[in-house]
């Protein structure tokens, strides 16, 4: 690589890179440090303790919000992946009129600011409830189901972007061969396509899950009394009476997401061995 950079430049670049990495991780390191600090998160340190972590376990609303987020993220990711597979198949394996329009539609949620989208869903739900109350005397109301609906919409482009490339690479001839051997469409999908798609499906699920778990704007408008984790976290950030507990949980979550990413990376390496380096280069990123 001597063409691109001189030795001197390379030294500077290396220094810059590692300084930036330190900058990126320092706040997170502080969080981890202060999750063991006995007092407020400021210097000087007040002594080592692990009771923040045990306090977290007895904090019902905190645990509850994590649970709500897990439920919402799982549900919305599963739906988003399922819908993503359908759209990917339709776009790649079928011919029909209006493909560009459909394409534009499924990717347009990428454009909308979540703030605007959350508000618009709020308005629609309010309207639906008004109508239902007037006609049937019952209502649906806001809540986790509304958040799931919103998250599916915003996750859909990402799942499609993940599944589409792999589906493209899978040779159509494999499916044709299966059909020649007498398998029905459904069987072909179940026994040939689906297993081959698995890495992309898992990636898509993980991306959608991460997106949903951390999503605040939409959830803040649509969650009713059952807060999701980001909504809970946000409300507590403005009333920092539980700051050390939040810091403790954040360290745990960060470790969990690091492990998640590491396992995804390992999955990528496995896929690399299976499908060759071209796929691996794209990976799930």
């Amino acid at each position, binding site marked *: 690589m001597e063409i*691109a*950079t001189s030795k001197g430049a390379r030294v500077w670049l290396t220094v810059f*890179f590692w300084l*930036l990495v330190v900058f990126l991780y320092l*706040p997170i390191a502080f969080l981890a440090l202060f999750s063991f600090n006995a007092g407020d*998160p400021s210097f000087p340190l007040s002594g080592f303790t692990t009771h923040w972590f045990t306090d977290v376990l007895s904090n019902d609303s905190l645990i509850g919000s994590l649970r709500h987020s897990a439920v919402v993220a799982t549900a919305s990711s599963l739906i988003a992946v399922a819908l993503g597979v359908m759209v990917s198949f339709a776009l790649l394996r079928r011919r029909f009129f209006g493909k560009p329009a459909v394409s534009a539609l499924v990717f347009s949620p990428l454009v909308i*600011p979540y703030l*605007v989208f959350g508000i618009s869903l709020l308005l629609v739900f309010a*309207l639906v409830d008004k109508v239902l109350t007037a006609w049937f005397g019952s209502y649906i109301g806001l809540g986790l189901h509304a958040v799931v609906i919103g998250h599916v919409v915003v996750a859909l482009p990402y799942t499609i972007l993940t599944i589409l490339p792999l589906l493209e690479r899978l040779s159509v001839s494999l499916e044709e061969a299966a059909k020649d051997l007498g398998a029905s469409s459904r069987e072909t999908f179940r026994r040939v396509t689906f297993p081959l798609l698995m890495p992309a499906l898992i990636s898509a699920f993980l991306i959608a899950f991460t997106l949903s778990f951390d999503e605040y704007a939409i959830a803040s408008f649509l969650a009713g009394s059952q807060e999701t984790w980001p909504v809970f976290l946000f409300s507590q950030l403005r009333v920092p009476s539980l700051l050390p507990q939040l810091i403790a949980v*954040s360290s745990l979550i960060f470790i969990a997401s690091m492990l998640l990413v590491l396992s995804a990376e390992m999955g990528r390496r496995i896929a690399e061995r299976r499908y060759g380096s071209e796929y691996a280069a794209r990976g799930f990123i």
Partner: protein
Amino acid sequence: MTAGLLSAPMLWLLLFFVAPVVYVAAYSLGAIKLFPADTGVISFDDWRHFLAGGSVYLGLFWKSIRISLTVSIVVVLLSYPIGYFLALCVRRMKYVLLLLVIVPFLTSFLLRVLAWKVILGDRGILNSLLFSLHVRSPDDPISWLLYSQFAVMLVLAYVWIPFVALPIFVSLNNLDRSLLEAASDLGANRWKTFFRVTLPLSAPGLLAAFIFVFVPTIGEFVTPLLVGGPSGYLFGNAIQDLFTRGTDWQTGSVLAMFLLLVVAALMALFGRFVQVRAVTSD
């Protein structure tokens, strides 16, 4: 068969994406009102009032643009050397190091903002460190660190750098090395090669990176809420407040639709120069 495949996704998007957006648009035009005691008549009054600068909100919009622009430029400038370093100077640990940079982006956004709130306060980590080192006295902390426009920009930059390094890296990584060799053979020194070969060829990645951060931050409201203070109030905050504090949803819808249109226009504009798939796949 196609209809069957597409029916579920299309229905979902139509019901839960298109309809809501249309509904907000209708709101902004006065076709629907919160308390339908007055008749809903389509009027452009609210739009005219907003666009003509009659209210403070247009000025607020430009403030948000200014801040987003600053953040985006800074972020791209900082991320470019990262992408360059990883793509062209590193051979073996390339993807591992890239992962190292990206991983923070995959952790909770709110938690990262929380970390900075803890660091920047008057009695936060940074200031208390300065106190204990006797650089500053406890009566005189650096107070513009938190609850300021500076805080908003710093946190936004911090949040987006990991994400933005990716498209830059991808475009630099796909650079045809032979072009660089050719330039060198033709007698260009490294700076010239950089400015006349590398930089132009990586421009799509640069542009994509810029869009990736510029577009979402225009509507940013969470960061200002947490670290912005009164002076860090941005356009997104105005939209949120209009819907949650008062009942003036007409103005709120106008602002929301305006934001949506601006974002859509920007994406369409930049979309001509950048192929989304080209950047993410190869």
